[in-house]
């Protein structure tokens, strides 16, 4: 889980690095990768040991960063709109997917804590599990749509 968390963050951040046009944001993305990686090592060794504790110290800030990157990319898309219809832009689907996934995780964490603290019945845990599956399905469908959307057309229009 620790490794999945960090590799996921590096992958998604690098994707955003290539999608952003603003140089300051690009630099911030790179700096965030370095900081998160260093923090990941510290966390895995001292705070939430590898293979023993769920890395919530890493998961929470990375989800916040995903949501921030996604909102920043939406803002940048508004600043430099392309001529092509937004529905046919893969960036829109990808970004929507990341925003949906990262914000949904907060809801999942919040609901999980609530269920844990109030010691609710296993039905609630099942509900949460189904909800989690649903989020994963939606996220992967959105990523799939973004992959199937014609990127070549966007690149040429952009140029």
């Amino acid at each position, binding site marked *: 889980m620790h490794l999945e968390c960090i590799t996921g963050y590096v992958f998604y951040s690098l994707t955003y690095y290539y999608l952003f046009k603003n140089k300051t944001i690009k630099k911030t993305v790179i700096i965030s990768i370095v900081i998160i990686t260093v923090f990941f090592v510290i966390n895995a060794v001292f705070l939430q040991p590898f293979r023993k504790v769920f890395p919530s110290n890493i998961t929470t800030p990375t989800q916040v960063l995903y949501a921030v990157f996604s909102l920043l990319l*939406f803002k940048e898309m*508004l600043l430099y709109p392309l001529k092509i219809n*937004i529905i046919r832009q893969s960036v829109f689907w990808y970004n929507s997917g990341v925003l949906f996934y990262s*914000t949904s995780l907060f809801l999942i964490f919040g609901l999980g804590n609530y269920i844990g603290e109030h010691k609710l019945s296993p039905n609630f845990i099942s509900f949460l599990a189904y909800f989690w599956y649903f989020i994963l399905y939606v996220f992967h469908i959105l990523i799939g749509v973004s992959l199937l959307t014609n990127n070549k057309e966007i690149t040429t229009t952009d140029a």
Partner: protein
Amino acid sequence: MPDNSLRLLISLTAAFFFGITCFIIYFVVLYRNKQLKNQQEQEQQQSAFRQELLKAQIEMQEQTLLYISREIHDNVTQVLSFVKLNLALAADGSAPVKQTKINESRELVAQAINDLRDLSKSLSFEHITRIGLLKTIEIETGRINKSGIIKVNLWAEGEVYPLGEQRELVLYRIMQEALNNTLKHARARHFKISLQYQPELFNLTLEDDGNGFPANLPDKNNGSGLKNMESRAALIGAVATIDSSPGKGCCIKVALNPLEQRLYIDGYHPDRLSR
């Protein structure tokens, strides 16, 4: 309690999905509006560019016609009148006088032919399309130097590349406007035209050693002409800077990045007069 909690859980989830869906729909609408606004702005720019280009072409035509009419009146007509007079005198003269007059007339007719040929070359807006900016300016420089009104020096540096018909036309018009201003107001003795062709930068510099003018020149005293140059330069993506002070002449610099593409400039232009 569990029922209430379940209700809360479902409400929270529903609210979350509703919120995120609303956000995405709002973004799509906002994006669409921005696209429409951009499209309208681009159309306005395109229309302004076409109007300005047409205006520049008409001005060039007017100037060319004015020059042709002046040349025909002051030069060709005078030469041909002299030929007519010579031939009239030859009719009454002896054989050697006749021969001399005919020879003189032949030379004068040859001069008139040359002048007419030069005139035909001064249809500049067509020349730019065919021979390019540098060659057209060379012809203009030759014409002005021949008239003796002012000494024009042309200086070109770097490997010459085409800037595109419309850009060259606007640049030529800026040069013509600057030269006109110098002839009308500056009382200059020299006018220098420099063209610098660098891979990512084209510079057109127009300098005179005339009276110059203060920086805050009012519109009625040729200020609108200077603003015209700046706005025309901006239309082709160039930056025009005008530097002058009383007694120190005037220097106009036009800098253009030839690699920068403007959608409304490139390609076939429906209003173009040539070809």
